[in-house]
């Protein structure tokens, strides 16, 4: 019975789909069009790939200054010593092999009226549609002693690459018994659980190599993503709640806001206290990537308002903004969000170029955190577009966190799934 039922299912299902396909000449094959994508990170690369997959006749150009990209996700494993910097590096051959043009240059201007992107090298690229996926930039003023130059000694490592290597080398060079201070950013920022996973991964390294050392998080926020799960992990793995805790979490309300960083003396001064760490990891407040700000795509918040169904800019028609730079309501600024938004944007552009209606979008976010050996957990959400108030809202009853009382086997599996996710999203994004 079951066998018959399954075979019938396939026959019926197959016929239905074939019928739909016949009635529908490939949606965008009839039309080509020029799409210029600014940024070769997760959002930009995913959009490029899914545009080409949907319609190879669309001309897709990606403007990206770097010749390879270091994923921010899993960069905390580099800090923890579980992965090399090369292990989070991905090249652009996968995009090129699909016929996507890579322009290895920095985008210096976007003209939404003339529909051109100009590059620092002096090129002018015409577009029918532009996708701006520039990630984040940092607010570097406001704290005494902190500027671009100070980053040579106080890395943020919030864009993976040389700063990740620098922070790792500082951890390697510090003596046992030293203090690592992580200063977390205010909301909203890239990768909400990131600072806390970072604290965990650094503690993981120190526990094995420099067990008298300590990690202290100074946080402008009163709560953070996956807080219960992190706190449980720190208790299980790093003595949280005891006198010998390797991780301490202090909010500004307790220790005061940061008012001075001294890169030469390596000191942190808050309103009430002074710290003398071996390593300072200051993760500054964030806003949309510079090109989005320069191109008048951001509002007063520093982030870019968009139509949540198509990610087309609310300020300039024909230009889409996705990933960390966009205001995507309930979706966090994560790699998976950017990947999911890239697919929605590709579908929106394919439809727009063909003069068709945009299909109903669907978005997902999953996010894994690894807190130590065989200790992982996750959060997930499925989102739908709500036209009445132009929001992206989580589907009620779906998604959520790993249970706090998950078994050790479950936590171990979540690490395996985190690594699975890494391999697969890389492949899905860059080919």
């Amino acid at each position, binding site marked *: 019975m079951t066998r018959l039922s399954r*075979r019938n299912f396939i026959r019926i*299902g197959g016929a239905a789909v074939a019928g739909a396909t016949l009635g529908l000449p490939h949606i965008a094959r009839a039309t080509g069009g020029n799409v210029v994508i600014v940024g070769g990170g997760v959002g930009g690369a995913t959009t490029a790939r899914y545009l080409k997959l949907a319609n190879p006749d669309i001309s897709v150009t990606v403007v990206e200054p770097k010749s390879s990209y270091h994923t921010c996700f899993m960069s905390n494993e580099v800090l923890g010593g579980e992965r090399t910097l090369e292990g989070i590096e991905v090249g652009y051959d996968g995009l090129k092999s699909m016929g996507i043009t890579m322009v290895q240059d920095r985008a210096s201007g976007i003209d939404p009226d003339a529909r051109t992107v100009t590059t620092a090298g002096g090129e002018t690229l015409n577009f029918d549609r532009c996708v701006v996926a520039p990630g984040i930039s940092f607010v570097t003023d406001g704290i005494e002693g902190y500027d671009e130059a100070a980053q040579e000694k106080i890395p943020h490592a919030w864009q993976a690459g040389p700063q990740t290597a620098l922070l790792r080398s500082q951890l390697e060079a510090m003596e046992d018994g030293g203090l690592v201070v992580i200063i977390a950013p205010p909301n909203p920022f890239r990768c909400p659980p990131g600072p806390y996973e970072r604290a965990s991964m650094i503690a993981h390294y120190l526990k094995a190599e420099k067990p008298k050392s300590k990690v202290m998080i100074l946080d402008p926020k009163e709560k953070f993503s996956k807080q219960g799960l992190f706190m449980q992990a720190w208790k299980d793995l790093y003595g949280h709640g005891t006198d010998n805790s390797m991780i301490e979490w202090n909010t500004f309300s307790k220790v005061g806001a940061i008012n001075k960083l001294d890169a030469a003396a390596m000191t942190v001064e808050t309103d009430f206290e002074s710290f003398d760490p071996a390593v300072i990891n200051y993760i500054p407040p964030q806003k949309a990537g510079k090109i989005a700000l320069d191109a008048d795509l951001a509002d007063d918040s520093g982030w870019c308002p968009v139509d949540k169904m198509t990610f087309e800019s609310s300020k300039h028609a024909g230009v889409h903004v996705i990933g960390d730079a966009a205001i995507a309501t309930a979706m966090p600024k994560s790699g998976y969000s950017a990947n999911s938004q890239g697919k929605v944007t590709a579908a929106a552009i394919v439809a727009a170029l063909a003069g068709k209606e945009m299909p*109903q979008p669907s978005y997902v976010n999953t996010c894994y955190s690894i807190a130590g050996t065989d200790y992982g957990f996750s959060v997930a959400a499925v989102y739908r577009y709500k036209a009445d108030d132009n929001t992206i809202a989580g589907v009620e009853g*779906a998604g959520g966190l790993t249970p706090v009382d998950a078994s050790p086997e479950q936590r171990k599996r979540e690490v395996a799934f985190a690594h699975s996710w890494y391999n697969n999203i890389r492949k899905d994004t860059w080919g």
Partner: protein
Amino acid sequence: MKARGILSSALAVMALVSVAGQAPAAELEASMLANTCNGCHGPNGTSYGPAAPTIGGTNAAYMFETMVAFREGERPSTIMQRIAKGYSDEELKLIADYFAKQPFGRVVDQNTDPDLVARGKQIYDNLCEDCHEDEGMSAIDYPALAGQMMPYLDHQLHDLISGRRDLEKNEALSSKERRKKMRNLKELVDTEGEDGVTAVIHFFGSKN
């Protein structure tokens, strides 16, 4: 129990036929829904491992049943139960049909032990072949196991053996099928032991 499962599947298929028949947007919606899965399961549902299964090329009915079982909390998982709750029967049907049309990619050369592969092949011939036909390559009635990542196979086999993934609760299987699968799993453990389980995993993992 079983009748209910089949009936609800049949109704959902009928719903799908009517939707797909009238609306060209339905297929687009299928790819829109299915593409969100690729972040974890790989492009076109082909996983580059280690723990998430390849879902491209999966028998559509099996995938639909599996997703419903996740959604209803009848099958254990790390994260899928939480995600499956975000989709209706009709959406799951579209997703399952979409992935059934994709190729089953066997893209990662897994590190297998030839002796374990040979022993696994013998065990497969005795205990697994009736359902997982063609050395586990077939996806006609049951999931294709050949070429799935070994950590994934390890999780699933151990969940089945421990009863954490409870075949008794699988409404899609006839009681005869359930009995047979449970009997064969028991025989695997009783006569071949943990090494035999590992051997079966190596056998399927050796396929590419």
